[in-house]
């Protein structure tokens, strides 16, 4: 990501696959008139190059494993990565913007930066329910809930937060904390509602999924651990970013090791042998 890319609109990297695909289609058309073998050869060429082209469009970055610390304390860098990546996804969408294709290119998937206010509002070792509008333009439909716990600092001295997304990873219902909510301590920080809660586990009202305090499944139908928000700290404020999926969490609090994957739909396996049923990443989750 050089600075140059930020200032000029950039197009997808040049690729020869579309040309091969076009040659294949031309062969099919000629074959229709001339002979069946030419048609079959054309179809094979178009299939192979079409596949390579599609694979190119869905090119992925490797899945990584993250510790519980803040990924980056440099706000400029954190913002830059997101912005540049959104650019390429928009270009692809305008390139193939018809029919159902936009949904295959991850159009409409955006990462929002949500400022939850000063980290002093998050007492160490306790969960706080944060409800907020992910996108004020979209309104109430973008209301999300995060369960945030301040874990103090990691061994490297980096601030550590557990930031669970309330969406159940069984079928997407809203997970509830199992414990009393302190409604009197309700705080509102620029549109974000913060409610302290004594929660040792989280339960889902729809089909009985149960998660422990790290978001690991302890009972019920969920197939992985609760999704989490990436977070950063800007000017002493806790800022939530992209949502990612979690295979499982080892350890607790600041010492947790999180198996981090691109965001997947609820009910989709990210690890184990079942992950081979979902070979392509969710559109939009990698950008």
């Amino acid at each position: 990501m050089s600075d140059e890319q930020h200032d000029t609109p950039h197009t997808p990297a040049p690729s020869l696959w579309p040309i091969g695909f076009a040659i294949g289609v031309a062969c099919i058309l000629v074959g229709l008139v001339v002979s069946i073998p030419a048609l079959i050869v054309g179809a094979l060429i178009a299939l192979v190059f079409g596949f390579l082209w599609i694979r190119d469009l869905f090119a992925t970055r490797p899945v990584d494993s993250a510790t519980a610390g803040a990924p980056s304390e440099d706000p400029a860098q954190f913002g830059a990565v997101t912005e540049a990546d959104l650019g390429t996804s928009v270009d692809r969408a305008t390139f193939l913007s018809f029919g159902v294709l936009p949904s295959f290119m991850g159009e409409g998937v955006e990462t929002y930066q949500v400022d939850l206010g000063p980290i002093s509002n998050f007492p160490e070792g306790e969960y706080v329910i944060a409800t907020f509008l992910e996108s004020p333009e979209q309104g109430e439909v973008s209301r999300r809930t995060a369960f945030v716990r301040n874990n103090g600092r990691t061994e490297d001295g980096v601030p550590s937060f557990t930031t669970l997304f309330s969406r159940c990873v069984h079928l997407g219902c809203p997970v509830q904390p199992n414990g009393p909510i302190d409604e009197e301590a309700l705080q509102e920080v620029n549109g974000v509602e913060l409610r302290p809660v004594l929660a040792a586990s989280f339960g889902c009202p729809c089909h009985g999924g149960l998660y422990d305090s790290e978001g690991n499944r302890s009972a019920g139908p969920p197939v992985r651990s609760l999704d989490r928000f990436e977070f950063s700290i800007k000017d002493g404020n806790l800022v939530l970013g992209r949502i990612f999926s979690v295979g499982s969490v080892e350890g607790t609090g600041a010492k947790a090791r999180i198996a981090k994957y691109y965001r997947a739909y609820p009910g989709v396996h990210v690890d184990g042998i079942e992950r081979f049923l979902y070979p392509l990443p969710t559109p939009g989750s990698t950008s």
Partner: protein
Amino acid sequence: MAVKSTKRRQLETVALYPLDWVEERSGLVGYTKWFLFRKVPRDISWAQTLGAAALTAFIVQTLTGVFLAMYYHPDPEHAYSSVVNITEEVTLGWLVRGMHKWGASVFIILMFFHMARTFLFGAYKYPRELNWIIGVLLLVLGMLEGFTGYLLPWDQTAYWATVVGINLNATAPFAGPFLAQFLQGGLNIGPDTLSKFYALHMLLVPGGIMALIGLHLYLVVRLGVTSPPWSKSAAGRVRPETNGGGREGLIRPPATEEPES
């Protein structure tokens, strides 16, 4: 043969002239007779009317749906309030909405009864296999209507039921996440989801249902109504020997090779 009075002949001419006029130019009178004036087995019963009942339910859904669409706003800010407005303010709006809401279940239930009758009477057998297949597609499209219509009131039930429904689709191997993304227009339900479901519910799926109902009825008229299995009159008919007669003129005969002179 009784001699008709002049007056009666004049009256008949006046009444029949428009029919003859239409028939001469379109043949529609003949087609209508072909469609409506059919012979049916002597021992049919109310069981054979379930298909027509399902069709009636669909027509009710279409008509009430058109009137609801005049007052409904498919955007997140106004969807719920427009539904409340239909129910509480618009004259007889509660009735039209109620008919659409309950009629949806009636339509699905009648389709299942119709399907059960067809299955139990063996009416899916030769030569009606294709009509069974079309019927199954109609059932699938009908359920899709139910799924897309359920989101439109935009209340808590609608929202969370659709969240679960979409995520159920997402768990299908390989294609699931893409299907969910197509339905949702993003990783969560958003403003686009509502307008997308509205378009599917209003335009695409009903269009498909109407087209398939047309085919379904054509085949019913062409093949006739089945007798019940306990019928005493001879059931079925001899399977005619096909010689591919319908293919005549479809494929160009091979050119006869002539020696060059």
